[in-house]
């Protein structure tokens, strides 16, 4: 099964009268990871919500896994149950049960193997984000939309989890919002910079090489400078 491409055609994104995007057309290639960069408030989250079918009048292109900017853990569920929330919500007891080992494995990989039964409020900010990441990955969807998924993580954990995400999301259609140009360069098959009000997407930037790329690669460092430059002038 190959993951579908996502496309936005002549879309208008308007929030309470604020025009975020006008007549927007945009393609996200199937089976690949697209990283969205852009100044704060430009409309990255809004675009992601548009893709997820969460804005009025929109529908998702297919089943999606959506990781929002907030972790949205349910305070009354244990970490484990939060991670298999999708199965709880959709499924019968069997499906939920079957999701258990997968959820446990994912939690172990994000470093929360010892906190399966903890309630979210006993976790640190980064631990909560990791739980939310595990929940998103546990969904096992062909389309994955992630909004700043590693923002609360230290450099090392972030590096490891980028690897994990790249590995588990290989072959899926991923749209990821990030503020870290280097992260975009490590993980993105394509990178798009959004700029302006209403925003317009910049040209596709496609670094060479397989993801996850080595951040020490001089090509990437050069591109990073270019990205920051574009962010500066665009914003």
């Amino acid at each position, binding site marked *: 099964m190959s993951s579908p491409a996502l496309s936005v055609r002549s879309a208008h994104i308007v929030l309470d009268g604020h025009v975020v995007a006008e007549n927007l057309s945009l393609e996200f290639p199937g089976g690949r990871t697209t990283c969205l960069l852009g100044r704060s408030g430009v409309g990255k989250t809004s675009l992601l*919500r548009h893709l*997820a*079918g*969460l804005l009025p009048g929109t529908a*998702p292109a297919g*089943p*999606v*896994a*959506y990781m*929002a900017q*907030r972790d*949205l853990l*349910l*305070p*009354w569920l244990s970490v484990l149950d939060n991670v298999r*929330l*999708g199965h*709880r*919500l*959709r499924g019968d007891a069997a499906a939920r049960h079957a999701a258990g080992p997968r959820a446990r494995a994912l939690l172990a990989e994000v470093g929360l193997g010892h906190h399966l039964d903890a*309630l979210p*409020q006993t976790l640190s900010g980064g631990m909560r984000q990791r739980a939310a990441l595990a929940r998103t990955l546990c*969904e096992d969807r062909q389309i994955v939309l992630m909004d700043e998924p590693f923002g609360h993580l230290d450099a090392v954990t972030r590096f490891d989890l980028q690897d994990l995400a790249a590995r588990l999301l290989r072959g899926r259609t991923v749209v990821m919002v990030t503020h870290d140009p280097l992260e975009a360069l490590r993980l993105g098959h394509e990178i798009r910079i959004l700029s302006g009000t209403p925003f317009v997407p910049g040209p596709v930037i496609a670094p060479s090489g397989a993801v996850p790329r080595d951040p020490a690669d001089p090509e990437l460092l050069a591109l990073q400078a270019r990205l920051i430059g574009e962010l500066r002038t665009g914003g």
Partner: protein
Amino acid sequence: MRPLVTALGLLAGWELLVWLARLPPYILPPPSRVAVVLMERRALLLEQAAWTGAEMMLGLALGLLLGAALAVLFAASAGWRRWALPLVIVSQAIPVIAVAPLLVLWLGYGMASKVAMAALVIFFPVVSSLYDGLRRTDPGWLELARTMDASPRAVLLQIRLPAALPAFASGARIAAAVAPIGAVIGEWVGASAGLGFLMTQSLARGQTPLAFAALFVLCLLGLALYVATDRLARRLVPWQPIQGD
């Protein structure tokens, strides 16, 4: 220990009030006099309290159940909301004397009609609070559930309902506090027993101290039920920090 001090303090306040306002005992008997009656008539009071207590507990149980069920229905279905919500609101405006004959006709003079009447008074805070809570779920959670293809039913039961438990607890507290008066109102419907009946009868006979002894027992029952409900309500929402005690 502290609640005891409070209780004694409040009784002293009552005695003082009677004394300062020079209230005659047939209007408001002093606690000292009520205490004497309380001792003398303890068998009678206990027997009536058992009745009223049973009505209160049954009424509260029924009220909580019915209230929760209706709130969930209203949150789930626009149809129910449209047809039954006005009825539920209007039901609160109906005085017992108007429906008493109807209730008796359907449920007889036994305990059922009294409990039904009590539940009618008790269930409303629960419906109202819980329904309010169910309408105020964090939109982020609902969106998350939507991307997870959750059925409306699953969203309701697994997200909106747990998220609304603090609101339910709030409603349950009010329900517990009005349960005694619910039971007394229920006793309007064909009762020849219970603290409410005892009160009416003693007031008619000019035995105000006995009426107030019954009222005192009723208040004790009410407080006990409230404290128990409050405890349970807190347990219901262990993840929510409560300030101030």
